[in-house]
Structures are given as structure tokens and as C-alpha cells.
């Protein structure tokens, strides 16, 4: 089970590429997908919080990764930083 933010993100991105990307980028561009990185199940919604809420209703203890379909990031921020983020959950 991935337990660092980077590992959760990498597992989520791998699941997205394998299971969802080809179909969802055709059908649901701009929508949000929350992926349970343990089960591989995805929850699609119009907003990121709605996708996460649907996922947590199924498994409130799940580790998850959120993707904005067809975009490099879910949100944009106005700053730049390149510091490492190596935590253990």
C-alpha cells in the first residue's frame, strides 16, 4: 500500500493511464476523477469535492488520488516552488 504522497500520486496516475485515460479524455474532458489507489475504483464528478465525497462514501479510509481529466493539474496556483515533499502518512 503506498504511504507517501508521491507514492499515492504515482499509483493514482498509473491507474489513471491504464484504466481511464483513453476513454475518459474522449468522453469527460474537464470533469474530475477520484481514484482509490488500493481498489483501483474511480469516481467521476463535476467537482473535485463531489468525486472525493463519492469515493469516501464507498470507503472512508481509502487513500485516493484526484485527477482533472485532460489537465496536468487539478488546480492552478500563482506561485512556484521546487522543494521536496517526503513524508510518511
Amino acid at each position, binding site marked *: 500500500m503506498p504511504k507517501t504522497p508521491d507514492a499515492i500520486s504515482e499509483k493514482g496516475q498509473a491507474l489513471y493511464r491504464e484504466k481511464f485515460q483513453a476513454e475518459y479524455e474522449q468522453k469527460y474532458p474537464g470533469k474530475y476523477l477520484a481514484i482509490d489507489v488500493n481498489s483501483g475504483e474511480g469516481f467521476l464528478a463535476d467537482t473535485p*469535492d463531489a468525486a472525493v465525497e463519492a469515493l469516501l462514501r464507498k470507503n472512508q479510509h481509502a487513500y485516493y488520488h484526484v485527477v482533472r481529466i485532460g489537465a*496536468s493539474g487539478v488546480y492552478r496556483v500563482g506561485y512556484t516552488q521546487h522543494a521536496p515533499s517526503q*513524508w510518511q502518512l
Partner: protein
Amino acid sequence: MPLVNGSFNSAGCPTVQIEVSGPLGNRFPFTAMVDTGFSGFLLLPILEAFPIGLMLQGTLAVTLADGSSQTKLTCLGGVHFDGAEEVGIVVIEWQNTEVLVGMEFLQRFNKRLVVEPTNGVVQIDDALAPPAPPQPAQPALP
């Protein structure tokens, strides 16, 4: 029209008072910078997130100003503002930065931001009603 007054921080950026709550229900007050360059709901430094009891179990990528991406921890959290509460995605910043509310905050609370640096005015009030759709032209009366 309900109106919330904010203020400028020492860097000259607009700020407002909010409260944040997690699954434990306790509200924690913060002075949050209103950052229209942030498309999200709320960004919190990690040291502020722990006392609230936020469940840090998600990740997402954010796009930085230079176009690169960076992974962030996330969770769901409640923001209390102007007598209302909205639950949304909280982006957790591992460095000790300012608390930010972004465009999704204004959208979710249906607010607009008015900033007048020259007069020291920071106001958040209700969003204007959407403009009426254009009406078809009426034929001229004889």
C-alpha cells in the same frame, strides 16, 4: 447586500477572516489571503491542518506558475464564512505558507471580491445576479 470587510496584509494582499473545521467539528479561525491566482478552494500549511484533525488521505497535482506540476496532499474540510459553511477540497502545503482561499472559494460561497488598494478597501459581498438573456428584437409598431 451582505458584505464582509477584509484587510490588507503586510505584503499588500487582500485577506479575510474564515474558520475551518474538520471531522471533529471544532472551528479554527484563520486570516486567509484571497488569491485569485489560485483556482482552488482552500490551501493550508500542514502544521495548521493537524490541530483541526483533517484526514490527510488524498493527493492531487497542482500546476505551478511556471507550468510545472507538483503533488500535494489533500483532504475534505469545511470553511465557515459570512454565516455559511461549504465543504471542499483542502490543499495541504508542507511549507509554512499563508492560508489561501482561491477562486473556488468565491464560487462556492457565491461571492465577489472588491479590492481598492489606494483606499484600503477589501470587501467580499454577494455575487451579482447573472445578466438577463438578450430579448429578441420587437418588430416596430406601425
